[in-house]
């Protein structure tokens, strides 16, 4: 496997211009969607089968009374332990040689297990093609020596593309710099490959707690819950079964002459 590629989205540099969102649509030939009123500049409200990059606009009053307008360009996280990939029964969702996660549209059977398996709500179902869709990490571009369209379009280098290990080092330095400048909540999200989901290949620098950006503090794969739930179910079944057996036994004891 080649060296893992990654995208590092530094929200402290994001100016919310949405060039990434438009570049993504243009390169991937995604269609127009009639937007809904979100009450702010953000459109659309969620990832859809036609929106793979989404800039979030979060108005967050600071304790000082001043306002912070947190801007974040969100995208598929290309998790090292990817819920969508694990849930896929046909093998349509696969890991590329660069560590990114892509969906083979030809072998996707439209079962939607991946949609519910993504802890970030990234994967969407395309009703027209009957397949699941999400950010491809511009698979066609990275296999031809180009970076993803979103990173290419970003004017402030808020979205950076490169080898994961290099970017993580850079990101760690950036957090230290920002802390020195007074951003005490500056933190990385998904950079740690020993952390949740084995690390994200699209990781982030946040200026506030993940919850502020509507990101889970410690995302888990639904499959992991399945194991626990299954054990609990099995446990319950055993208890009920034993109870039943005991009951029969009592009954049996009562009718030993039958």
């Amino acid at each position, binding site marked *: 496997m080649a060296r893992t590629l990654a995208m590092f989205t530094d929200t402290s*540099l994001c*100016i*919310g*211009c*949405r*060039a990434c*969102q*438009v570049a993504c*649509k*243009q390169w991937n030939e995604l*269609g*127009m*969607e*009639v*937007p*809904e*009123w*979100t*009450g*702010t*500049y953000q*459109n659309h409200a969620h990832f859809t089968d036609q929106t793979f990059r989404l800039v979030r606009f979060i*108005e967050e*009053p600071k304790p000082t009374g*001043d*306002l*912070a*307008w*947190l*801007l974040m360009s969100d995208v598929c996280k290309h998790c090292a332990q990817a819920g969508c990939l694990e849930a896929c029964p046909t093998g349509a969702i696969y890991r590329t040689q660069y560590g990114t996660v892509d969906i083979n549209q030809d072998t996707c059977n439209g079962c939607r297990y991946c949609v519910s398996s993504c802890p970030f709500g990234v994967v969407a179902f395309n009703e027209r093609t009957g397949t699941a869709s999400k950010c491809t990490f511009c698979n066609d571009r990275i296999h031809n020596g180009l970076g993803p369209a979103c990173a290419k379009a970003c*004017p*402030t*280098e808020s979205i950076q593309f490169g080898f994961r290990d290099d970017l993580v080092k850079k990101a760690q330095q950036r957090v230290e*710099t920002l802390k020195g*400048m007074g951003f005490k909540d500056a933190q990385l999200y998904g950079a740690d490959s020993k952390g949740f989901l084995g690390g994200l290949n699209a990781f982030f620098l946040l200026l506030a707690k993940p919850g502020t950006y509507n990101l889970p503090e410690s995302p888990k794969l639904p499959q992991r819950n399945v194991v626990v739930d299954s054990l609990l179910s099995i446990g319950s079944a055993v208890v009920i079964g034993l109870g039943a057996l005991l009951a029969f036994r009592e009954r049996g004891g009562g009718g030993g002459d039958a």
Partner: protein
Amino acid sequence: MTTNLIDVQNSDVIMATSNMAENHPVGFQWVMKAKERGAKLIHVDPRFTRTSSAADLHVPLRSGTNIVFFGGLIKYAIDNNLYFKDYVVHYTNASFLIDPEFKTATDGGGLFTGYDPAKKAYDQKSWKYQLDGEGNPKRDLTLRDPHSVFQLLRRHYSRYTVEMVERVCGIPKEKFVAAAKLFCENSGPEKTGSITYALNLTQHTNGVENIRALCMLQLVLGNIGRPGGGVVALRGHANVQGATDLAVLYQDLPGYHPVPLRDAHPDLKTYLEKTTPKTGFVVNRPKWVVSMLKAWYGDKATKDNDYGFDWIAKRASGDAYSHQHIFVDMYNGKLKGFFAIGQNPAVGGPNAKLAREAMQRLDWLVVQDIFLTETAEVWKAPGSSSRAAVSPKDVKTEVFFLPAAPAAEKDGTLTNTMRLIQWHEKAANPPGSVRSDAEHVYQIGLRLKTLYADSKAKRDQGILALTWDYGDQHPDILKVLVEMNGVALEELKDKAGKVLYKKGEPLKSFADLRDDGTTTSGIWIYTGATVWDAEGKVVNRTAGRKKADDKDYLAHGWGWAWPANRRIIYNRASADPHGKPWSEKKKFLWWDPEAPSNVPDKKGKWVGLDVPDFNAFLAPDAKGGDNPYIMRADGKGAFFGPLLDGPFPEHYEPVESPVKNLLSKTQINPTAKIWKVGDKKNELAAVGSAEYPYVITTYRLTEHHLSGVMSRYLPMLAELFESHFAEISHELAKELGIQNGEKVTVMTPRGKIHVKAMVTNRLKPFTIDGKKIHEIGVPWHWGYNGVAGLPGSKGDITNDLSATVGDPNVFIQETKAFLCNVKKGVV
């Protein structure tokens, strides 16, 4: 722009007075770079925007009070001794003495000496320097003389106290002082600050004075001509700079020569005498103008016929043809035909309803654009909940549409905000019969020449004399660029007889232009953009793509910047009067006494990181060696600089204002242009109007472009906003019972629109002299055309709300601050 966007990364502090992150996101990368290096960003804006989100300090100010803010900063810098005294003494006109008759607005109730109420104009006879026996301005380098510009400046801004800033602008005292400290303390020999502006300052009835106030603050702090300093003038869209350079404005010829006046300039000699100063670099105007006429008229331009001066269209001194003049004249039937090239005045200009009705009265209208704009369909404009439909039966105008190609479908140049001319190559052929703007214009010229071929009429001779040979049918744009650059018409030699240019060779510098008809140059400031290589092949320097590196951080090999590929103008000011850098940290250009001179056996030359903006061999102690502002006759930066509305910027309230002027009894700019238009088409709200109690400001969004022609027709961009909207504070929404997303009516005496309310914390009411004043914001991108299937791409026209009023110097409209009312629901 005095500087270069790349250089903004060297600023220690940046004050964005415009919404740069949203409207100039690509240029904003350099602000972010500066921030990464530890620079501070201050954002001054009535609204909290995407620029504020990146800022260290957001300073909200009520729209229309910029001069109070800048005047307050100038006073703060002087009172607290934070100004750059050596710079002020040597490089500005602060030490010059003014006629004792002159009194500032502090002593005249908001008026300067010489106001004539009947003419609504100033007699400027006392607005001048005191001269010594030899005719040179008198100076007092101690700056103590009460008639010195510096003392007059202090007197003028004595009213602009911190308290006054709070009362008028609505900026809390602590916030203003924090901003003042941050900006002033990051300026000086060791540090520099830059200030950005755009339409936020220009679109006011004192637009030019707003910008002068900003420039004066930069002069006080010594922030011009130095790395990391400067006035970052951000143009409204790509190639506005190029359009102004090439005389899209009615008062200029290419290269900023004044348009000749038919009463005052009967011939070339008189024109040149009256428009050429005695000192400063503009003494060369005759060479530039004659070379321009030679470029236009070629062999037909001779010394005997004044090089064709008679063929140029001239105006009478009192005539003006600004955007607003044109539409008022059109409404009044004075104009019969109109050619709109890449412009959508049905949506984009002030009082757009008036503009549409004016166009519906034309005999003919030609629209040349990339989509069928609202202007192209002004004869059948559909109605909306706020606006009646136009019936084609009622419109007699004959409308022609010429489909035009966007930038990606043609070769050519764009001159951007930092005077940088960048060549771009066609990426695809335009579809069908679509042509580039240049080709449309070229074809019209060819056809006019055919049409007038046999004409003996005097008015047609200019068209017939015009050099118009850029290709058979399709113009070769490189030929146009070479004509703009200029060539030697014969072999040119220097005084010693050495050959400087071969016949036909493009000129390398405007210093080589001549006034004897041996050189051409369509626009002198572009001379040097194209040169010959050793084989005599044209090298297009605007197509250069050498990136910045350690040796050349300003990337002189990327494109070509006018003038002379200079990236920071007035750069003499980057060194002290003796030619030494002000500090090691801000080293840029300096005098090297050991470097070889251009004169044999002499030494001394200016060296450094840019092309010197002056004679590179002029020693700092020579006469004029400390004059950085070469385009001014006195060579000094102007605190005292007569415009039509006064030599110092003075605060007046916008024409429509919720409050009385607290600075003086003069309420509005006494020289502002307020058009009287018939049929109640330009009614104005009274001061403190109860009917129209709220301030409204209009603006643009990153996702849309101007009147929407390049964004509302493109699904990927048009879908980014659900629909047209007005931004309203939670406080105002609560008072009016308005929910986020609810339809509201915004109305002014000119018109009304129906939009959705975006209720937000990003706008807050102001406290103005103890009274709560609400301000709302409305973007102006929407019109009645758009993408099929995307209803929100169409919407009411914000400019139906704005008025036909203007600045006295350039007649720009006041669309950043006026009054409105807001009502819940569709009224």
